[in-house]
């Protein structure tokens, strides 16, 4: 027998619950120092290595001490010019080991080259090469925003490598995002919509007149452009409705991908097939001013994108995502009105050009404000790649050898919960949308040990790939400091390059105990000078080097190092 449990007022409850409550946001958390959140106005305060390091941490995959010092010698505007400048695309990925590929000798690119039927080794070799190429791009991104922005777009216009499969398709998709990363958002949406990897991933290639597939139309609105608002009525999400999904799917019909695994001897591409296209007149909802779309064949999708991009909400939605990628996850009401709204206006005023809006954000008072410095938990890709770049881990010169290292490195990321090309689903990594944890989703009892193990192994010199020891040179690193002679100054200065916020005196004292346990300060000075005066003396070098490695292992195991 069924029983309505508890009180019997089911009728009352239902009516109360339906009339009284509407979707509400939890109140924002405790207020922070009064100067937060500040404004999007140009930052005019102190411009020193601390501000430079903050800007570079957020926009690049790592900077050496030398990089930061040099960057601090130019103005903020000049540095941002460099970060946003035009750049040539990286060289195409190459076959770096497989000698059974009839079309591609070792050292040549496999992009748009034929596959051999049933040759799985060949496919594996291209997948590995793509994985290596991707890591190489991250490591060699230099003092430029593009690689971070490419990953941002790849986490925005999500495809999953495990679904798309053909490395050639994945390569084209990724390079499309890279080439357009700093360009025009409208252009990017247009290109992504008919990109072969996307056509496969969200079933656009199966979206036909007779059998419409709504998958891409839905995500185009919900995730890629305007976002989903609160439920205003059944099927009406404030920003768009179910009708728009259904009609939008019809507008997008007719496209197929071509050249999947070089099928029919064709390169990766897409094609419009008129008789798969729904030529009827489509009617969007009042959310798009009841727009009517008549048949425009292969250019119809652009028309739909234009209709969506006429809505002001698109710029807000994209700017919130940029904000969460480059600044912080917590978009309070103040941040919404003082930062997001003005960003969105810049975005719209510049017809969706990405550069102006990024320039405004990265040169704003808000960006350098105390509340914006340090609270971002580095994602695993940032955490690992940064280590290699920041600590100048030497990698071999030759391109083949480099690929060998890069592709092996690409296997490290899985346990950390972030593999390039493999976000968990079409919404991307949870860290950038899932309330209330956001960035904190990276940190669990499962991933924390990996972070500590990674830095321990890297610094101790146990990380080895193909007989190459991947480790930093601490003596070379501290030689770049202003004052490596005094232990306090050494630790404080190192900390200023490693952490976003300076350590407390007690923490410095703790680390000094790690460096020179139970010894007076001058002993460090003596030992270090001994090494400097006899650089050829291996025993002295080793003892100082070992001390520094212990110090660095401890420093990188501190959670301050996980923050940016």
């Amino acid at each position, binding site marked *: 027998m069924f029983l309505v449990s*508890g009180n019997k007022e089911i009728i009352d409850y239902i009516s109360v619950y*339906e009339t009284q409550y509407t979707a*509400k946001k939890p109140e924002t958390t405790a207020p922070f120092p009064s100067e937060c959140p500040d404004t999007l106005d140009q930052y005019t305060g102190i411009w020193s290595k601390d501000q430079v390091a903050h800007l570079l941490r957020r926009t690049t995959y790592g900077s050496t001490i030398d990089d930061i010092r040099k960057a601090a010698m130019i103005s903020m505007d000049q540095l941002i010019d460099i970060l946003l400048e035009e750049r040539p695309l990286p060289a195409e990925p190459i076959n770096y080991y497989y000698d059974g590929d009839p079309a591609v000798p070792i050292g040549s690119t496999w992009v748009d080259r034929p596959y051999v039927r049933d040759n799985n080794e060949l496919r594996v070799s291209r997948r590995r090469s793509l994985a290596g190429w991707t890591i190489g791009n991250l490591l060699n991104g230099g003092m430029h925003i593009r690689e971070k922005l490419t990953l941002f777009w790849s986490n925005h216009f999500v495809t999953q490598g495990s679904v798309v499969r053909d490395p050639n398709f994945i390569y084209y998709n990724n390079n499309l995002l890279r080439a357009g990363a700093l360009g025009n958002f409208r252009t990017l949406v247009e290109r992504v919509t008919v990109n072969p990897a996307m056509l496969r991933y969200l079933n656009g290639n199966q979206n036909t007149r*007779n059998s419409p597939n709504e998958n891409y139309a839905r995500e185009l609105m919900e995730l890629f452009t305007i976002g989903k608002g609160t439920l205003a009525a059944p099927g009406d999400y404030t920003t768009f409705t179910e009708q728009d999904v259904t009609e939008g799917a019809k507008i997008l019909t007719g496209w197929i991908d071509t050249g999947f695994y070089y099928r029919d001897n064709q390169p990766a591409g897409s094609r419009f097939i008129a008789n798969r296209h729904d030529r009827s007149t489509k009617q969007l909802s009042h959310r798009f001013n009841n727009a009517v779309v008549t048949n425009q064949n292969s250019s119809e999708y652009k028309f739909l994108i234009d209709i969506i991009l006429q809505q002001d909400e698109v710029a807000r939605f994209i700017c919130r995502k940029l904000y969460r990628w480059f600044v912080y996850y917590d978009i309070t009401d103040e941040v919404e009105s003082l930062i997001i709204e003005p960003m969105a206006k810049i975005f719209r005023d510049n017809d969706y050009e990405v550069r102006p809006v990024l320039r405004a954000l990265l040169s704003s008072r808000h960006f350098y404000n105390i509340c914006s410095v340090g609270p971002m938990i580095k994602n695993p890709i940032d955490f690992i790649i940064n280590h290699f770049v920041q600590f100048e881990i030497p990698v071999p010169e030759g391109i083949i050898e480099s690929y060998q290292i890069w592709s092996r490195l690409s296997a490290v990321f899985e346990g950390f*919960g972030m593999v390039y090309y493999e976000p968990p689903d079409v919404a991307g990594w949870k860290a950038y949308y899932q309330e209330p944890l956001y960035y904190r989703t990276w940190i669990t009892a499962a991933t924390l040990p990996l972070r500590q193990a990674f830095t321990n192994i890297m610094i101790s010199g146990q990380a080895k790939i193909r007989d190459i020891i991947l480790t930093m040179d601490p003596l070379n690193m501290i030689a770049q400091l202003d004052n490596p002679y005094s232990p306090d100054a050494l630790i404080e200065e190192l900390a200023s390059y490693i952490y976003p916020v300076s350590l407390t005196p007690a923490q410095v004292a703790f*680390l000094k105990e790690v460096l020179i346990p139970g010894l007076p300060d001058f002993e460090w000075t003596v030992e270090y000078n001994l090494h400097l005066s006899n650089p050829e003396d291996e025993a002295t070098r080793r003892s100082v080097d070992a001390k520094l490695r212990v110090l660095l292992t401890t420093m990188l195991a501190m959670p301050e190092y996980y923050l940016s």
Partner: protein
Amino acid sequence: MKRRKFIRDASGFISVPFFIRGLPMTAMGSHHLRQAIDEDNDKILVIIQMNGGNDGLNTIIPLDKYDILGNVRSNILIPESEVLNVSDNMGLHPSMSGLMSLYDDAQMTVVQDVGYPNQNRSHFRSIDIWTSGSPAELVWTTGWLGRYLEGLYPDYPIDYPNDEYPDPFALSIGSIVSETCQGTLVNYSLAISDPLSITPLSNEGQGSTPDTPYGRELEFLRTTIDQANAYGTVISAAAEMGSSSIEYGDSKLARQLQAIALLISGGLGTKIYIANIGGFDTHANQVEQGTTSTGIHAALLKDLSDAVYAFHEDLTSQGLEERVLTMTFSEFGRRIRSNGSNGTDHGTAAPMMFFGSCVSGGIIGDSPTLPDDPGVSDGVPMQYDFRSVYGSVLQDWFDIDVSVINAIFNAPYTYIPIVNRCNQTTPTDNIPSISGIEAYNFPNPFERLTTVAIASKGGPIRISLFNGMGHEIDIILDRTIASGELEIRYDGSHLVPGNYFCRVISNYGVKVFGMIKV
């Protein structure tokens, strides 16, 4: 026989204004809840999240609707001869032979057509709804189990673990904590990927934390490290103590369930475990062209079935089966009609499955109500609200008082007898008789006016009209009525032609039937 114990003192509990900041229960006095739990309850709940939206109609197959299914999903329909019949009108997907044997031993219960009013077909929003236990219209950022745990242990994680509570409250197997266990500020679940290899973490050199966002995140990191260390010790100890001698296979789910079995066997006091199996978003190639009992969906169901069967065998061989209830959920079912890509698109309700030696055993609810000619967007209409399922599990499995459960969902729920006395032997094909209520409409199909006729035992009744998308679009009747027969005229002239579903909910049961507007 009945394990339920009643709350000792819940006075004043429900009058607490528990809806603060949009988050239920944050202001609740913890002592009330403490008294509401049974400290001797040693039950364990294992949740299997099936990510992507499982096609219920190809999982628990309604053989009495085979003609309709044959008309609208012939390209993915499992041949009738291959379906594993569990009753006259229900069958399991042929990949699920392990579950078939659990069903035959009354170790499996299916609740038909679980969903919520105003179905949201976005994966992420619908997962949020299922994990938070919120109505579709509200955004709650806490999880349903998180609110329960927060009521009991409001200070967590400060001073946890401790002598009284040395074990983690919930464990998520993998690298991500479970949203079902999200509290207001902290998640009550711990994520571990391998209980046999947990190494202590360094957390030295702590300083004070500034009152900034940076300080806030740093504090979170330090607390997580401390906790991982403290709980890591007990988890490792349990894993070493535990045993597991059954062959599980090597699917990801099998490995997760085996890790859970090991920890339960080793005596870990954790009450809630969460495992995950992904890939159910089968828009395309759900089945192999031509051989519909194979393909992506078949492989997933086989992984599920094999892993759950091994898990159950493992627990039974160690005498632990009466302590463990396993349940599945997925963010939505899929549409009645298949698409042209041998797949199915996002739909509405779907069955939930429960396993263990204490389930009632059998099928709860009617065979899904399908229109004779389903529209392109039509999903399976809901019979049972998912919060009623959650509430009934909390009530019967964890002995939680009804008023506490009502507070967790900020609403009453309908009791569903999912858990029963342990170790039954015969499954029941239709567990709670729905004789308490009968309903239909005439004429049907209708043009403008139609009459809904119900026969009931009276009491509060709500009759509402759902469209094929699962939205509750009209309320036909919503009041207390006398027992007996009642006819209500309904003017549907404002409706666009198509398929609708009428859902009647009362104290004596739920009834869903189709209505066609022409």
